[in-house]
């Protein structure tokens, strides 16, 4: 007997493990009859998961935490037993802002501290000349994109709430908004950075892996109550996603995976652009300059799929730093409890352990992150909007 499941997703490359699990038949092999539902907004995915229209969803990791904490919204405990992707975002800037930053930079353009300091000089000069503040686009208030942009610019002395405008934009609108000057830069996942570069309207300034070595990006999310009622089904879903992640990470399978993902009812962009992302080989400038990184997007390799509660703690710390959440031991416990390596290990046959070297956040600025001392950690940063 097969179990019917409805799973929501947003057309982004980091939904790949879920899409390939279904379209390659890995889900069917686990006895699951999955209907993937393509959605247009994170709010829709969240709400439909919350009220049970979806059994599971491709979800921004911070939304899973915010939902469990009841931040800004209905409180529905969510668990994330599988990481669909680590990293995968990039910061893209308009040609004009790129030129301005390069005009101010003192050091290597790949060094996020050098670019952040250059940005702060650009911001200061604009203020002195009476120009409008810069506008940066990101995908959602509770998103890694939001926190990665903030972390980066604040390290250079730019206050993201005072010195510029940070606005939410749906990913499909990012490129147009950059082209017509509604935003000067954005942080978004694949394929949109590459699309902007290909159209000649943007330069990729940073892969977010320049900012954080390992950042939980999207998770496979289910309601906690559902996970408790359907442990076998959940384990089957985790195994199907794991098999898909392993398939995608084999270089010889990449072109097949990219073709599956490129289908119009899945991600619906060129297979070549998708493959660039999976391979971590991106064109970063309209002049054709390429950059490779083995850390651009991790789907399953280096233990990426196994949820790490320290990552959840880091995301919670960002919510506190920027005034979205209150500091408190209970909230921290709830946040960390969203990421469930135990469910992942159980699905894999028990006894699973995090692979060596897979821990840590690896931020380019500030002290090493310690989930046990978030207040101490945040105190090390000058810019922030939290009350101890």
């Amino acid at each position, binding site marked *: 007997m097969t179990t019917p499941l409805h799973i929501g997703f947003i057309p982004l490359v980091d939904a790949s493990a879920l899409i390939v699990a279904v379209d390659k038949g890995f889900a069917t092999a686990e006895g699951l009859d999955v209907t993937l539902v393509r959605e247009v907004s994170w709010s829709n995915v969240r709400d439909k998961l919350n009220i049970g229209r979806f059994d599971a969803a491709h979800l921004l990791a911070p939304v899973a935490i915010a939902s469990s904490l009841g931040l800004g919204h209905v409180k529905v405990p969510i668990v994330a037993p599988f990481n669909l992707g680590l990293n995968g975002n990039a910061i893209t800037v308009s040609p004009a802002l790129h030129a301005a930053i390069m005009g101010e930079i003192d050091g290597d353009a790949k060094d996020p501290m050098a670019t952040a300091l250059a940005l702060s000089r650009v911001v200061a000069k604009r203020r002195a000349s009476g120009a409008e503040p810069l506008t940066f686009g990101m995908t959602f208030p509770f998103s890694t994109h939001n926190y990665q942009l903030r972390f980066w610019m604040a390290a250079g002395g730019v206050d993201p709430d005072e010195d510029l405008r940070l606005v939410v934009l*749906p990913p499909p609108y990012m490129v147009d908004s950059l082209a017509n000057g509604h935003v000067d830069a954005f942080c978004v996942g694949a394929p949109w950075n590459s699309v902007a570069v290909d159209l000649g309207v943007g330069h990729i300034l940073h892969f977010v892996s320049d900012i954080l070595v390992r950042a939980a990006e999207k998770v496979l999310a289910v309601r906690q109550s559902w996970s408790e009622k359907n442990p076998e089904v959940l384990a089957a879903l985790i195994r199907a996603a794991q098999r898909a992640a392993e398939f995608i990470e084999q270089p010889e399978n990449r072109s097949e995976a990219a073709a599956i993902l490129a289908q119009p009812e899945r991600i619906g962009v060129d297979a070549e652009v998708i493959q660039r992302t999976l391979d971590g080989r991106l064109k970063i400038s309209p002049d054709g300059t390429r950059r490779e990184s083995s850390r651009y997007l991790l789907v399953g390799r280096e233990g990426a799929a196994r949820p790490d509660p320290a990552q959840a703690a880091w995301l919670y710390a960002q919510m506190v730093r920027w005034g979205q959440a209150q500091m408190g031991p209970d909230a921290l416990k709830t946040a960390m409890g969203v990421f469930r390596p135990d469910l992942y290990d159980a699905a894999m046959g028990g006894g699973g352990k995090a692979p060596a070297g897979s821990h840590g956040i690896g931020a380019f600025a500030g002290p090493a992150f310690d989930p046990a001392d978030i207040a101490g950690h945040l105190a090390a940063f000058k810019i922030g909007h939290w009350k101890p």
Partner: protein
Amino acid sequence: MSAESSPKIVIVDESPIRAAILEEGLREAGFTRVVHISEMQGLLARVYAHDPDVILIDLENPSRDVLEQMFQVSRAVRRPIAMFVDQSDSASIQASVDAGVSAYIVDGLKKERIKPILDLCISRFNAFSKLQDELDRTKSALEERKVIDRAKGILMKVKGLTEDEAYVLMRSTAMREKKKIGEIAQSILTASELLK
């Protein structure tokens, strides 16, 4: 309801027909201050220009995420949203998601004043999708009739049948093969295309 006490409602919808249906319903119910926004570029600024108490948006609209940032105050956000429908009323949330609409309530509006707006919104959205379904059904029925007529023409020509005989042949074939007459007609068209 006087103009002053009527809350200001902004409808964000790229479908002009659905927005008109909703706006009309709201006006009939006495909500006289209703504005429709159909342009998504710079949405936040457009919304603020009207300073609404309630914002209604359809769920097919990716710009729903743009409104979510109004839960927090920042340089880009002036008047924050206090809640999303009534958080304690899960039946309302389900009904609105199923109808395909969501409501954002700006800080300051009393809770009991939201319910009639939301209920009306849900019923108008449901009425619109029913209309849409009927339209789609009529369209496909029309298409099917065209296909049947063309298949009839082919049978009449190829087999030398009258119009009635051609129709009876298709109908009896459909019954024997447990298919719809439209499907049989489509097969005749496909076959005749292949044999051309």
